[in-house]
């Protein structure tokens, strides 16, 4: 083994040691959560063994039933998909325009969105509720979806604009010369190129909508419209908390988000490399 190889092995070991130690601190809570989900309320704080003696797999089933997850789960999937698609379309349109196109007042509009992200609106639930009520959007899916789109909009625009700004423009120029329309450029060139950024936005907003609870409670009345987080509330009373069922519920609730993340992850890894650009060229048929 020459010196170069030793150095490389050492370096890679150090890297992995670093990554693994951070990874451990992240894995511990999820292990703890799943472990707690498999215990009973009596043993959950007493049993110190790493793997508890009796595993209550039934907790997941009970949590699913008691939390009425069936309906809530579907609702959450619906809200998350609708909001995320809405945000990706609306914010990428806006960000594309902010990044590539010219129109008067462009900067004012852009900074307005950025500023909005910064200014928290305490008590805005009062005017918002009154407004939604006047629009007959209280207790409707549509109203809730619109509100949630608004919540994620500013941040997504800022993020996407940053990425659009950085992306090479050659491909767009080529497409424009080929007679592609602006909308076509956005859909066929800019969006596929910005895949890593869009993946980030999808993850960010999915998590946001999936975990959102306050706005849903405020705007929705019917149980049949409530999202998943409503089901989790059943296990945390004002005073008493059923920890194993809560943990089981939280585990169930966390799983789909990790799935979305797993699915989006490859778009982040791929980035601009690995021929994304070439396949794009072959696929593109302008309208």
């Amino acid at each position: 083994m020459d010196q170069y190889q030793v150095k490389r092995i050492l370096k890679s070991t150090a890297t992995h040691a670093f990554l693994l130690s951070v990874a451990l601190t992240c894995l511990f809570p999820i292990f703890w959560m799943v472990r707690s989900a498999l215990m009973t309320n009596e043993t959950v704080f007493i049993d110190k063994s790493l793997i508890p003696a009796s595993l209550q797999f039934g907790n997941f089933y009970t949590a699913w039933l008691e939390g009425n997850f069936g309906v809530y789960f579907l609702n959450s999937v619906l809200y998350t998909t609708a909001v995320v698609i809405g945000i990706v379309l609306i914010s990428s349109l806006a960000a594309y325009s902010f990044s590539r196109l010219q129109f008067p007042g462009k900067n004012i509009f852009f900074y307005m969105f950025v500023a909005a992200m910064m200014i928290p609106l305490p008590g805005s639930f009062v005017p918002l509720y009154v407004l939604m009520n006047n629009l007959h959007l209280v207790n409707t899916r549509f109203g809730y979806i619109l509100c949630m789109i608004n919540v994620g909009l500013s941040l997504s625009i800022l993020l996407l604009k940053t990425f659009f700004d950085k992306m090479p423009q050659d491909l767009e120029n080529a497409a424009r010369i080929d007679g592609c329309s602006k909308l076509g450029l956005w859909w066929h060139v800019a969006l596929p190129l910005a895949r890593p950024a869009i993946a980030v936005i999808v993850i960010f907003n999915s998590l946001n909508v999936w975990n959102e609870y306050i706005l849903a409670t405020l705007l929705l009345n019917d149980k049949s419209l409530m999202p998943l987080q409503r089901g989790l509330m059943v296990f945390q009373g004002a005073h008493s908390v059923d920890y194993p069922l809560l943990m089981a519920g939280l585990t169930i609730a966390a799983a789909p988000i990790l799935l979305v993340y797993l699915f989006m992850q490859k778009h982040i890894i791929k980035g601009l490399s690995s021929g994304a650009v070439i396949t794009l060229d072959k696929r593109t048929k302008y309208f």
Partner: protein
Amino acid sequence: MSAITSKIFNAAYAKDKFENFLFIVPAVLIFSIFYIYPFFDIFNLSLHEWNGIDLSREFVGLQNFQELIHDKVWWMSLWHAAFITIIALTLQNALAFALALACDREIRMKRFYMVVFFIPPVLSEVVVGLIWQWILNAGMQNGEHIGLLNYWLAKSGLPQLVHNWLSDPATALPCIAIVHSWKGFGWGFIMLLAGLRIIDRELYEAAKVDGAGSLSIFKNVTLPMMVPVIFVVVVLTILGSMQVFVLILSMVGHGLVYHTEVPVTRILVSMSETNRFGYACAQGVTFGVILVMVSVVLKQISNRMKQE
């Protein structure tokens, strides 16, 4: 130049600008209804004294803002949030960047790490609060420390470091800041990684051909390319850290005297404990203006860095 000016009067040119504007219309529409309208309502409220229920709202002009200027606890809470933010900016982002750089290279188990690092952001605050209150617990039972940290310190021969972590003003806020950074680094990680992945690989190759070392590549290729993304991550970190509160509530309740107060908990106190909606809105508006000013300064800095 004259070609451009003549174009302004060109109908096609105007249509083109209008088309460009149409791209942002959906965003602006939603935004106006759900943000701008409540914003003006909130701003209007900040000029009133109102308990949230009364039919009448008493107009007090700028009195709420005047009072806020002299509210010592409020400014202290801002400092606390700034402290958490500074820890997050350095600790959390340095960690996130280091991890992203490591995962940007061709290493084994990359997918595994990427999933694992994203676990803390996905976890519910309930779990995070529970786990950390267990780790930092200062109690004893049957002569042994209940808290994992104290237990571990005592066992590893450092009993002098055993501490009342969450009820000592000197350590409560740093503990909160560290837990917050731990919960948030996953976001910085994936955003920075996405940014790194978008850098043209040919640039690296070219630098290598020119004989640049890895440190020099990082300084001269990676860092300049990453400035905009770093800017976004920094802004988001500031935003997330300045507005942290659920974590604080779940770790120390209403707080340790005033040592763990942050602006959002102060706003919540104004809204639900002292029932002063007008004052809460004044706090919110002031807080927002401060954040906007900070981000403007940051933008200037990042612009300058880009030029260099």
